[in-house]
């Protein structure tokens, strides 16, 4: 049975923290991911740094720039995941990447290398289903799930199309805009979760703007099976660049607190 199925068949809902591989540097990033796992993450969402991350907000772009300034690249990213897999072979790992990084490796090679490294799914931020056929084919061929995003503006007709292509889980945008920690989670999410639910039996994970335990509770209560926490973790890294010990302490505390919110 694949790793996603194992996690989502439990009664408990999932916490999905995100971080950029290599932020702020390779070794610290390894430690961060291990800390996140120890603190109770159910699924990992890992980003490959890209020079022009147009779907992301300033927090994640800054993380990308930190990682790139230490010469992170696709080879090292896959090596990183192999190291994480030695540490934990059970936790599902999803990638968040931009299409050019996949294209430059050769689409099939990318998915093949992802599988070899221990990746469970790939989400490409700037690849709508209309452009995705080759990528989906490579995913199927290499047994890597293809995750797609749905947003409050996605029509029902489009939801149905996406539901046919998506594998692993559905990434549900909790609000409009780029990624980033926001003060509240909008009611749009509730409606979107209701609209997508009849279209698919896959788990629904809500992301974008989830930064507090209350946000986790509200999206899970609205019907999501998991809550994706991105910029909030990256912000802790950013604030503690000069104090690694405190960085790990804060990340651990934050992830544990967010995880508790999934079991309330």
């Amino acid at each position, binding site marked *: 049975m694949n790793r996603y199925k194992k996690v989502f068949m439990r009664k408990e809902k999932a916490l999905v923290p995100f971080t950029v591989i290599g932020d702020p540097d390779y070794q610290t990033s390894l430690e961060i991911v291990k800390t996140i796992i120890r603190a109770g993450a159910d699924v990992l969402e890992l980003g490959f740094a890209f*020079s022009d991350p147009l779907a992301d907000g300033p927090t994640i772009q800054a993380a990308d720039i930190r990682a790139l300034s230490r010469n992170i690249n696709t080879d090292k990213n896959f090596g990183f995941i192999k190291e994480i897999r030695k540490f934990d072979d059970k936790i599902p790992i999803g990638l968040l990447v931009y299409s050019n990084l996949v294209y430059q490796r050769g689409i099939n090679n990318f998915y093949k290398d992802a599988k070899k490294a221990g990746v469970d799914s790939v989400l490409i*931020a700037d690849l709508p289903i*209309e452009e995705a056929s080759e990528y989906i084919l490579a995913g199927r061929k290499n047994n890597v799930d293809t995750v797609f995003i749905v*947003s409050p*503006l996605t029509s029902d007709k489009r939801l149905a199309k996406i539901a046919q292509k998506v594998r692993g889980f559905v990434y549900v945008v909790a609000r409009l805009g*780029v990624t980033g920690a926001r003060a509240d989670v909008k009611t749009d999410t509730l409606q979107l979760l209701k609209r997508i639910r009849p279209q698919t039996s896959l788990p629904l994970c809500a992301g974008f703007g989830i930064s507090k335990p209350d946000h986790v509770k509200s999206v899970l209560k609205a019907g999501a099976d998991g809550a994706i926490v991105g910029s909030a973790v990256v912000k802790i890294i950013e604030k503690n660049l000069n104090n690694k010990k405190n960085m790990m302490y804060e990340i651990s505390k934050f992830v544990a607190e967010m995880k508790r919110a999934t079991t309330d």
Partner: protein
Amino acid sequence: MKTRFGKYGGVFVPETLVPAVEELTLAFGRYKNDKKFNAEFQRLLREYVGRATPLSFADRLSKKLGCKVYLKREDLAHTGAHKINNALGQALLAKKMGKKRIIAETGAGQHGVATATACAKLGLQCEIYMGTVDIERQKLNVFRMKLLGAKVNPVETGSKTLKDAINEALRDWTTNVKTTHYLLGSVLGPSPYPEIVAHFQSVIGKEARKQILEIEGRLPDAVIACVGGGSNAIGIFREFVKDKKVKLIGVEAGGFGIKSGKHAARFADKKLGRLGIFQGTFTYVLQDRYGQIYNTHSVSAGLDYSAVGPEHAYLRELKRAEYYYATDKECLDAFKILSHEEGIIPALESAHAVGYLISNAKRFKKRLVIVNLSGRGDKDVVEAARVMGMKI
């Protein structure tokens, strides 16, 4: 509507932008052949922009080079460059779509000024994204935009130039799609932009073809234009594509030369310029082997961009257009020569097209050539003086 030019182009956008792109595609499809819309657009081009722009015989330059050179005078369009054609077209389209707020990116500032102008004229709210490096070298245009009522948002991310301004504009659009139209300034980005911009710029070539037939009684041997994203080039090329004997020549920014790695020559640099996906489109992009986008260099802010419009990639593949480059030095020499010989100070962007012609005059001996003079150089005099080591 088709989203590709051959294999180039496409719609590589986040899911959150798909509905906006679809809405724009529908609206463009509906209005591009709408009689009332076109009458209004044509009236604005005539009465407000001052079209048709002249086709001027450059007699002294011609004598110097030994060929017959005509200049398509987009520098004489209102606001000083061809950018106004597209800005007015899209602003009018946005108004029809019921959008009240316009955002745009700008590099040299010409597209920002054109957009701010169109918004002032049509009563739309306007915000311009501009990299802080470009703000520094184009202060005059920043002031003009503000004077025209636009808000200028400085972009501090990445290389702080045009590509970063586009990232920010796309982010703004993602967040505010319901109220906002993103007025993209070149034949770049996700479909339908490359087609929309080419459509509104095609007036340049339509006029030029008619004018050269009137004056010379024949078609030119070559049409030369500078290529950043490539909107002025597509604007003049399209009308001549069917005239197989007319050579279409695009000139990229060669910066300090190809070997230096500091340039914006996507086609000329075989190592860094490769097929890839950047800011919504599949085309030639300057990048490293992993796909990270390279920062470009050019003396002209308007050509300083990592990707080339997908239609250019297609014309090149079809061998219908040829692409070369002019270095910063060739550009600055042309900037001086055209000022001296013809009394026309060209934009540094347009000076690349002139620079290529001057350096390759032998190839055009006794030929009839049109150079698209896409903009005037008033905005560049401070920067040009600095680069030439002169104090103002």
